[in-house]
């Protein structure tokens, strides 16, 4: 497997702000890299450099084997980009937007029109094809913008926060489209603030903060980095806590932690389901009925919080991940 996107030691400073501070990235062919980071981490700067829009102060990068800094025009023929802000011309119709892009990719008039129609169909925009884009909703614009990135059927795709501002349903639809593209063999670099999204779509994740990669791995690896499964239990009465703590101590791999306020007791375990069954049996024997009990696996939120010391932005609107609780 060859590496389709490679960046080495990217540095970009704006005055005193080091937007990128020696960033390394590798995206193997046909895989998805999720670039994750809080506001101002340097995600957009990275995408802009890799897509020839911005020159780094230092470092090098190649896309599909082509040196981005030395031969940007060749790179532009190979990539598709959908930036953080949908760049559609609002006075043109959806069709005209895509046709224009096709012509600027030098597909020729006929092919550009065909391709525009294909994409409008694929993105469910056929009904709105002949309306000026300014009448489109945010989600429709976003889809049109993504369609614009796909006009020349690029093998390498850059999507900067493709689902920001979409409602949960549109987001799921966007995920489907992206998954399909990847299945067809597209190599994708995706930035996001939604941990769910990276978890769903990315094979590999690079967490960046202050322009540096602070963690790298598969979603599972990252979660494992901050610990395995935990058994979490909430009781109804203060008096039960001592008994529960004793029971959990025997089951877990470490001392339980107790939250007196919420009456919650948590303990790390090696095998979630086995521990859960054992706990339920013992609690039943002791005559204690917990108000809540479950296995908790670390989410990328936990990873993020632990690594950056701050919460990922506004992830509350992301669709809930299933299976976090047993």
């Amino acid at each position: 497997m060859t590496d389709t996107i490679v960046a080495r030691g990217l540095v970009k400073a704006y005055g005193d702000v080091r937007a990128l501070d020696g960033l390394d990235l590798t995206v193997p062919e046909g895989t998805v890299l999720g670039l994750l980071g809080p506001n101002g981490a340097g995600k957009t700067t990275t995408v802009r450099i890799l897509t020839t829009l911005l020159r780094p102060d230092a470092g090098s990068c190649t896309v599909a084997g082509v040196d981005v800094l030395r031969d940007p025009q060749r790179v532009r023929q190979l990539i598709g980009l959908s930036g953080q802000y949908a760049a559609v011309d609002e006075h043109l119709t959806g069709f005209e937007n895509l046709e224009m892009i096709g012509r600027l990719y030098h597909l020729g008039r006929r092919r550009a029109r065909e391709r525009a129609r294909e994409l409008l169909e694929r993105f469910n925009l056929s009904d709105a094809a002949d309306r000026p884009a300014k009448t489109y909703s945010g989600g429709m614009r976003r889809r049109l913008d993504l369609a614009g990135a796909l006009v020349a059927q690029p093998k390498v795709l850059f999507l900067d926060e493709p689902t920001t501002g979409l409602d949960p349903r549109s987001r799921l639809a966007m995920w489907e489209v992206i998954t399909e593209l990847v299945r067809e063999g597209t190599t994708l670099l995706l930035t996001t603030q939604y941990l769910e999204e990276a978890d769903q779509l990315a094979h590999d994740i690079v967490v960046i903060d202050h322009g540096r990669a602070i963690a790298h791995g598969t979603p599972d690896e990252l979660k494992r980095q901050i610990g395995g499964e935990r058994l979490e239990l909430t009781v109804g009465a203060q008096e039960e806590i001592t008994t529960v703590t004793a029971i959990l101590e025997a089951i877990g791999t470490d001392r339980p932690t107790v939250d007196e306020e919420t009456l919650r007791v948590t303990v790390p375990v090696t095998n979630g389901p086995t521990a859960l069954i054992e706990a339920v049996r013992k609690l039943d024997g002791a005559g204690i009925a917990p108000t809540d009990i479950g296995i908790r696996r670390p989410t990328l939120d936990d990873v993020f919080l632990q690594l950056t010391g701050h919460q990922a932005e506004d992830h509350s609107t992301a669709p809930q991940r299933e299976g976090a609780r047993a």
Partner: protein
Amino acid sequence: MSMSPLTAISDGFVVAKRNLIKIKRIPDLIIFTLVQPIMFVLLFAYVFGGAINVPGVNYREYLMAGIFVQTVAFGSGLTAIGLAEDMQKGIIDRFRSLPMSRAAVLLGRTSSDLVNNALVVLVMTLCGLLVGWRIRDGFVEAVAGFALLLFFAYAMSWIAATIGLSVRSVEVAQSAGLIWLFPLTFLSNAFISTDTLPGWLQPIADWNPVSSVILAVRDLFGNAPAGAGRGSGFPAEHPILLAVLWSVAILVIFMPLAVNRYRRAAAR
């Protein structure tokens, strides 16, 4: 990697078409672009028409070339605003990520603004003819006059393009694109004859490119005064030559400058 000039032209055509669609979709825009020059022709004809005297020529006729040139010069502000807007909306980023010619967005923008300017000139011509302005020279000279006017307008668009790509917002483009045009157009022979100016201002006004273009257009339309009313020195004697040279010089300087700004343009 450079692309063939042919690619630049065909890409520029695609971009120009896109800009013209916008004009078509927002008819109010073109109406207001046209209202101002019409208003100018009428106001100058009736308010100032009798107040200022330039010896040896009908002042209304004298004025028309001045209003023409001033209007197309201010029309170049559209180029600055249009590009700043595209940059702010991220459209320039989209273009810059495509394998298209680096000059195409600018060629397209300046061309569509030229079409706009031509439309404005046409409407002003009709309006001027209605209030009594007459072209007093031959047909060929008149065509040459309009061609020179639009050539200068096109050159000015490239200055505006450079400004539009250098500023950070549409609002700034709106003022930065227009403000320098006030001294440039008023410190000229547009509305007065330069011999009425204080001595030290006269050569400045005479050598002002705008004055050369105006005098050249006046000559070609047969509306120019004789003698002192033309200003003095070389510019008074060779306005057409100077007007062409100035326009070519502007293009030679500002085309590469604007393309360079475009390459670096960093939206947001």
